[in-house]
């Protein structure tokens, strides 16, 4: 529509996404080759605005990027000092003994509790000092492909109004053309989807499986604060067929990061990840940490849980997928920052090599990944998450312990994922409704007051960015069979059923969206297409997230 008026700009490398992977790639490129021009765009209003993570991070990737990261003032300020893994029943908690032997992946000695948003903001200042051009507030909305080669991306038009016409503030998008383009959009990136489909990158690999993480940051009274404490839980309130658990980290100045992850292969259509997350706070093992505190922010994001078996082909003519766009999260460790950064650095190495040898595809990236510690880590971890999918939570836990103690990740077999997450839901009539307690306004809250704390905002007068490919499917499938699961899995109250009793219809409150991407993953017929809204829209997570 607007190709004729779009301006364009040429760079050596264009990077989509300002998370740990994209920023590490940008930094590495300029470290290796200071004359390489690098442009990085980020759909959040600033770097860090869309970053949600626990986060306990392993400094390995960062230390390879900046061996002197401590002198440079990287915001890794709270070392892990003690940790507990709890198995919860409704009212009690049992501490898993010999954690470092039964769950060696969970050993966090030497790791740090951080705000990943803060880490990214810091990485961005380092990148800018090295001459990377960073443009937050601009969303890549289109992959530019010419002669079967990716030649860059185009940012979305701004100032398009609800019905698709140009408003008074209309600005056409811009073409950012690069010899190489790196997609670092995180889990389920919207441009990554386009590239993956165009080059059939998922051919021959397991379906990707996902989790949804929902997080709150609390400020608690100083006398209750134990900086460096890490607590994880599994068991209650999830049933044996649902993968997930809670985390709670004490960090920073009287801050606590609390959150909950649910595997999106859950079968119960009545399950609400948001309400599960809320009610775990009422459990004595969590309540005692949060009581007397106040909630200061809220956010949510999907993450890739497929691991090694689900990693797609990583390169294509003109670029590569890095970070969680490729799915480098280590699930048993529940960490992906160090692997994301490592993948970004390896892709930078491959791009420099391709540039020097004038190759269209930075193909050595794949071999570099396979030769690195990143691959070895994912290889030894590869059977844990699928074991939970196949044997349930209890069986999976037993398998994980055996794998850790006897096989040490060297099993001669590889377990596989058999279903996409959208195929696992059962019909409403076959599922049991959980009984979620009403929010008490002190420890537990409703969706809308939560979304408010994400500071999410979208220009009101723009087309809805959540699109139903076939609107009529909603009534016959989502409503008649599953009773609108999107109203429950969406952590931001975007999907709302109106006129339930008379003529049920779906109302999409796109303005509430926190860009977690769950609807794009979990909709039973993949009928919901998450497209990027106008740049700068979405959550505005403060430091601490």
């Amino acid at each position: 529509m607007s190709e004729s008026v779009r301006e364009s700009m040429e760079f050596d490398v264009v990077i989509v996404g300002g998370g740990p992977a994209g920023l590490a790639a940008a930094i590495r490129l300029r470290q290796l080759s200071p004359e390489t021009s690098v442009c990085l765009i980020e759909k959040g209003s600033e770097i860090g605005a869309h970053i949600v993570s626990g986060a306990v991070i392993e400094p390995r990737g960062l230390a390879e990027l900046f061996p002197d990261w401590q002198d440079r003032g990287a915001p890794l300020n709270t070392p892990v000092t003690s940790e507990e893994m709890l198995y919860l029943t409704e009212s009690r908690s049992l501490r898993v003994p010999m954690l470092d032997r039964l769950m060696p992946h969970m050993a966090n000695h030497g790791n740090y509790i951080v705000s990943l948003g803060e880490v990214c903001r810091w990485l961005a200042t380092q990148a800018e000092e090295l001459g990377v051009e960073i443009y937050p507030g601009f969303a890549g909305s289109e992959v530019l492909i010419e002669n079967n080669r990716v030649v860059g991306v185009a940012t979305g038009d701004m100032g398009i109004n609800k019905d698709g016409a140009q408003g008074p503030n209309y600005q056409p998008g811009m073409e950012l053309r690069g010899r190489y383009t790196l997609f670092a959009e995180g889990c389920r990136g919207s441009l990554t989807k386009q590239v993956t489909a165009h080059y059939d990158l998922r051919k021959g690999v397991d379906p990707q499986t996902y989790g949804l993480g929902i997080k709150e940051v609390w400020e608690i009274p100083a006398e209750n604060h134990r900086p460096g404490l890490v607590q994880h839980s599994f068991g209650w309130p999830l049933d044996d067929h649902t993968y997930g658990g809670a985390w709670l980290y004490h960090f920073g100045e009287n801050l606590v990061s609390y959150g909950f992850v649910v595997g999106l292969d859950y079968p119960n259509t009545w399950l609400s990840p948001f309400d599960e997350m809320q009610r775990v706070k009422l459990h004595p093992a969590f309540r005692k940490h949060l009581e007397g505190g106040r909630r200061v922010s809220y956010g949510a994001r999907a993450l890739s849980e497929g691991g090694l078996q689900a990693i797609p082909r990583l390169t294509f003519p003109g670029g590569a997928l890095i970070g969680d766009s490729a799915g480098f999260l280590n699930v048993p460790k529940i960490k992906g920052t160090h692997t994301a950064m490592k993948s970004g650095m390896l892709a930078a190495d491959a791009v420099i090599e391709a540039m020097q040898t004038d190759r269209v595809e930075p193909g050595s990236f794949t071999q570099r990944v396979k030769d690195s510690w990143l691959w070895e880590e994912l290889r030894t971890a590869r059977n844990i998450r699928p074991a939970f999918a196949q044997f349930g939570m209890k069986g999976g836990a037993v398998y994980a312990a055996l794998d850790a103690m006897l096989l040490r990740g060297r099993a001669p077999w590889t377990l596989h994922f058999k279903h996409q997450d959208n195929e696992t839901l059962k019909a409403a009539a076959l599922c049991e409704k959980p009984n979620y307690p009403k929010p008490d306004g002190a420890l537990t809250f409703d969706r809308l007051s939560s979304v408010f704390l994400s500071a999410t905002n979208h220009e009101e007068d723009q087309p809805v960015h959540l699109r139903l490919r076939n609107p009529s499917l909603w009534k016959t499938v989502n409503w008649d069979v599953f009773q609108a699961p999107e109203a429950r899995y969406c952590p931001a109250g975007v999907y709302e059923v109106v006129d339930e009793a008379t003529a049920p219809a779906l109302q999409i409150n796109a303005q509430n969206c926190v860009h977690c991407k769950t609807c794009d993953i979990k909709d039973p017929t993949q009928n919901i297409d998450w497209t990027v809204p106008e740049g700068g829209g979405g959550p505005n997570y403060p430091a601490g997230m």
Partner: protein
Amino acid sequence: MKIVVPVKRVVDYNIKPRVKADGSGVETTGVKMSMNPFDEIAVEEAVRLKEKGVASEVVVVSIGVQQAQDTLRTAMAMGADRAILVLSEESPEPLAVAKVLKAISEKEQPGLFILGKQAIDDDMNATGQMLAGLLGWGQGTFAGKVDVADGRVKVSREIDGGTEDISVALPAVVTADLRLNEPRYASLPNIMKARKKPMETLKAEELGVDMARRLTVVSVAEPPQRQAGVKVGSVGELVEKLRNEAKVI
């Protein structure tokens, strides 16, 4: 005619401010900062006057910490020609700002200052008026409409119950109200071009301005929580509650 537009870096309007635990102010570390929205309106108006051929140059000024250069870059991406950053501690007081702007005025000799009517962080609504006073210039505050012609600026002021039209001789100080215009987006090509526009950095002391604080913040607190309402069963109960509980009748 040259127009000078001062811009302030403030906590972004989408952010719910959090009061520091010791009550000394609001938390700004790691919080998203952007241009004061009223200043965006002021920049937009100045750029429009330049596009109409009324102004020859738009100069933006920010007084504050080094990061205020991001705010100035945004203003230049919207169309300002160059920027001056006056380094001082964060969020100086209106009188100090007005004195710095007076010094800038002596240096730049503008025909018009356009300011936001107030900054959304401290809501002082003072700098424009103080600046006009220090310079001895006329002022048109709370502008909802601005026209420059024949050495005068006509300002429609938004006042209680309507608008007031005044005409002020140039040079003058105008402060922008919410409905003056709708600021444009800074487009990506313009943001890229703004990186190459000139930015001068000065120190407040170099301008001979005393930045010492004259105001003391006693304490900052969040507004009290609103109590939940109750449903009453009958008119009688309502009257009873109004009389005996709320004690308003």
